[in-house]
């Protein structure tokens, strides 16, 4: 494999300093941000891909007030277990990740689709564009789906993903994470995010994690180790609840 020259010669120290400068400036302001900055220069790929104009405020109407419906037809129950998709067992620490999907008013999002994807335990994605020279695992694809239950609960069995290098700057490494894709009860709640593992030493170094400049909002992306989810002689357990934005349709109905 030929190494591709990084387009940015910045060091980790340079990027860490940029991250720190933005964090200091945020701490001096009024705070209250909940979402990542779209314009976050330490994440180099965002430079030409962030809108420069503020989003237009609009009242949702028509389809925006409804979400696509998914059902048993769409998702097989076995898709929630990422360790049984091949003939053998994947290498790595077996984990369960469980939590609830709630809306901004604390109501469970019932029977809705949750999709996940992740690197294998060596930090390698099966995606063909991933050039990290770590081994692929023939027994691990790293993608799963499930539907939430009547309490908004989801549950996946997987293996713990490894951290992996990327080319944002020299010696850049992403903290271990699982990508989550979520739907609510209306399309305005659609979101994609990443779940992290507690105590990752790469947190302060990672521009994607740090693009959520509010420390409390950032912390909400980190799962909790939960020994009650850990199963004897089998796997460790992590809990991670996800809150979507508030629904408008129910609010409008409540006001009528």
């Amino acid at each position: 494999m030929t190494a591709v020259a990084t387009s940015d010669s910045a060091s980790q120290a340079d990027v860490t300093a940029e991250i720190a400068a933005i964090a200091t400036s945020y701490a001096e302001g009024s705070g209250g941000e909940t979402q990542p900055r779209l314009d976050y220069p330490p994440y180099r790929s965002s430079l030409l891909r962030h809108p420069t104009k503020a989003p237009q405020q609009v009242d949702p109407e028509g389809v925006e007030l409804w979400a696509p419906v998914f059902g048993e037809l769409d998702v097989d129950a076995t898709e929630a277990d990422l360790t049984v998709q091949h003939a053998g067992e994947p290498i790595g620490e077996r984990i369960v990740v469980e939590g609830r999907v709630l809306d901004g008013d604390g109501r469970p999002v019932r029977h809705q689709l949750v999709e996940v994807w992740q690197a294998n335990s060596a930090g390698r994605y099966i995606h063909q564009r991933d050039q990290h020279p770590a081994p692929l695992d023939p027994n691990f694809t790293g993608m799963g789906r499930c539907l939430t239950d009547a309490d908004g609960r989801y549950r996946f069995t997987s293996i713990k993903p490894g951290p992996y290098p990327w080319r944002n700057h020299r010696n850049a490494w992403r903290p271990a994470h699982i990508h989550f894709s979520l739907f609510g009860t209306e399309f305005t709640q659609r979101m994609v995010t990443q779940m992290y593992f507690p105590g990752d030493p790469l947190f302060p170094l990672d521009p994607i994690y740090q693009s959520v400049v509010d420390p409390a909002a950032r912390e909400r992306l980190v799962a909790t180790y939960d020994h009650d989810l850990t199963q004897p002689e089998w796997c460790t357990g992590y809990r991670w609840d996800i809150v979507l934005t508030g629904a408008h349709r129910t609010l409008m109905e409540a006001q009528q």
Partner: protein
Amino acid sequence: MSLLPTFPATAGQTVGPFFGYALPFPHDNELVPPGTPGAVRLHGRVLDGHGDPVPDAIIELWQADAEGNVVQQPGSLRRDAGPEEQGFTGFGRASTDDEGRYAFTTIVPGAPFFSVTVFARGLLNRLFTRAYLPGADDAFLEGLGADRRSTLLTTQDETGYVFDVHLQGERETVFLAYPRHLP
């Protein structure tokens, strides 16, 4: 219940570069099978601030049916499952190719616009927009300047409708925030 949510929403994060084996599904961009009477294409390009193609974006489409009704039926992920093919669900996904092009095969909604979300590597959170049918007019469009309005209007071609997404730049697309979204 107030406009301000009780709980702050979990932060979004970029879809990253490696969603290609996870989010796409068979026939994801075919809301109706190609060749269906009345089928049209909704297609375009996703472009960055230099006007260069974004080859690692994924677009989602959510729309009403031809009568303007919102379909609430499962089956988007398994369009060809079961004894009979699934009907129109109103939802689809399309990944961009190396030239930043995406395309859906769908029907013309009986409503003024298609709802569109955009995800990409380098884009730290999803973006919402609307792809309006040509000639559409409503209070929201009316409130935008002519230049900005034009970014939300599809144009017609021989196969259907064209809708380019400019993430940044002179023709930056109008992206949306809804009342219960917080910064």
